């Protein structure tokens, strides 16, 4: 099938502002949008810039706005989006070149929620693992799946309004550690997420849940954090 691919282009060394370029490509319905971008870069215009790494939905490098909505380019098939495809960079982050955005504010927010395991207690008597029951694990199982692609955070109107907002990805990470029975820094994380630019700025829009390529129920996780904030129970 013939696919019309419209791509957001911006070269800071040449352009004052962005523009779109359109390419006509022969593609299969089962081709991925990432394949189309590779075709353009490999055969038509080598200056096209975009991030990609594993190309299998694991690394989260190629999160892009495809036909107006955030997706991973490597998990989006042509048949899912049709023959007319528009590819743009993620919203709310500075565009460095073409489809590449500056992820620094996103990772700065991520770091604020202490995204690492904290447990300073002595090891159990046998000196081995800190055990956890399947039920304890199930509470935060879903939020361990986050690949930090930023599709959720950059689909959030609150984040569009200001990058100081922690954003869904950071809150998902906070959920992953706060509800981990082995972790001991829940209070510190709750303090961070209950600040002005924390959880209160979630307006339950659900864009994040719909954008997540790992199908994490992000708004549900944020809802559980809100309840923990209100009740003080973790």
């Amino acid at each position: 099938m013939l696919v019309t691919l419209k791509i957001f282009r911006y070269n800071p060394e040449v352009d004052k502002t962005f523009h779109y370029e359109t390419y006509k490509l022969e593609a299969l319905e089962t081709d991925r949008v990432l394949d189309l971008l590779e075709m353009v870069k490999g055969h038509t215009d080598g200056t096209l810039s975009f991030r990609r790494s594993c190309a299998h939905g694991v690394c989260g490098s190629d999160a892009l706005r495809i036909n107006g909505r955030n997706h991973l380019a490597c998990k989006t098939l042509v048949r899912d989006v049709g023959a007319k495809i528009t590819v743009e960079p993620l919203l709310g982050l500075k565009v460095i070149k073409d489809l590449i955005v500056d992820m620094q504010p996103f990772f700065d927010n991520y770091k604020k929620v202490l995204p690492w395991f904290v447990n300073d207690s002595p090891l159990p008597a046998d000196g081995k693992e800190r055990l956890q029951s399947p039920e304890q694990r199930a509470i935060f199982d879903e939020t361990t799946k986050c690949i930090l692609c930023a599709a959720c955070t950059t689909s959030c109107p609150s984040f569009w309004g200001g990058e100081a907002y922690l954003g869904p990805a950071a809150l998902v990470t906070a959920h992953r550690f706060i509800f981990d029975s082995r972790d001991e820094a829940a209070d510190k994380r709750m303090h961070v997420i209950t600040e002005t630019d924390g959880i209160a700025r979630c307006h339950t829009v659900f864009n994040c849940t719909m954008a997540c390529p790992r199908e994490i129920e992000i708004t549900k996780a944020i809802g559980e954090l809100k309840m923990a904030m209100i009740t003080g129970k973790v």
Partner: protein
Amino acid sequence: MGLKRNVSLGTGLKYQGGGPMLVFVLHRIGGLGMAIFVTIHLLASFMSARGIEGGAFLNSIYENWAFQVFIFFCALFHAINGLRITILDLWPRLIPYQREAIWIEWAVFLPIYAIAVFIIVRAGLGG
């Protein structure tokens, strides 16, 4: 170097968030509409009480049936959508059913609004 991060209103509105995004936008419009109504109402009352010219004109704006159709939409939609959000916030276990919640919201909103619009328009047109 690089483009600024600013997301314009137009760009944000073009995001294809579907039904949940639509109700979010309508919720904002509803809140804004009520703020405009309260502002006009307060201003009109103040001007009329002080005998400042223009108070009657402002009164005529929000007493107009077309404005009432708009403001009733704002108030009713904002209230029902706010109730949906409150319920989901208080019972996060219901969040996986958020799509159904939005359908229920429309099912509650549309008949009430339709009846209200019928009454307002009929009264407005002197029926």
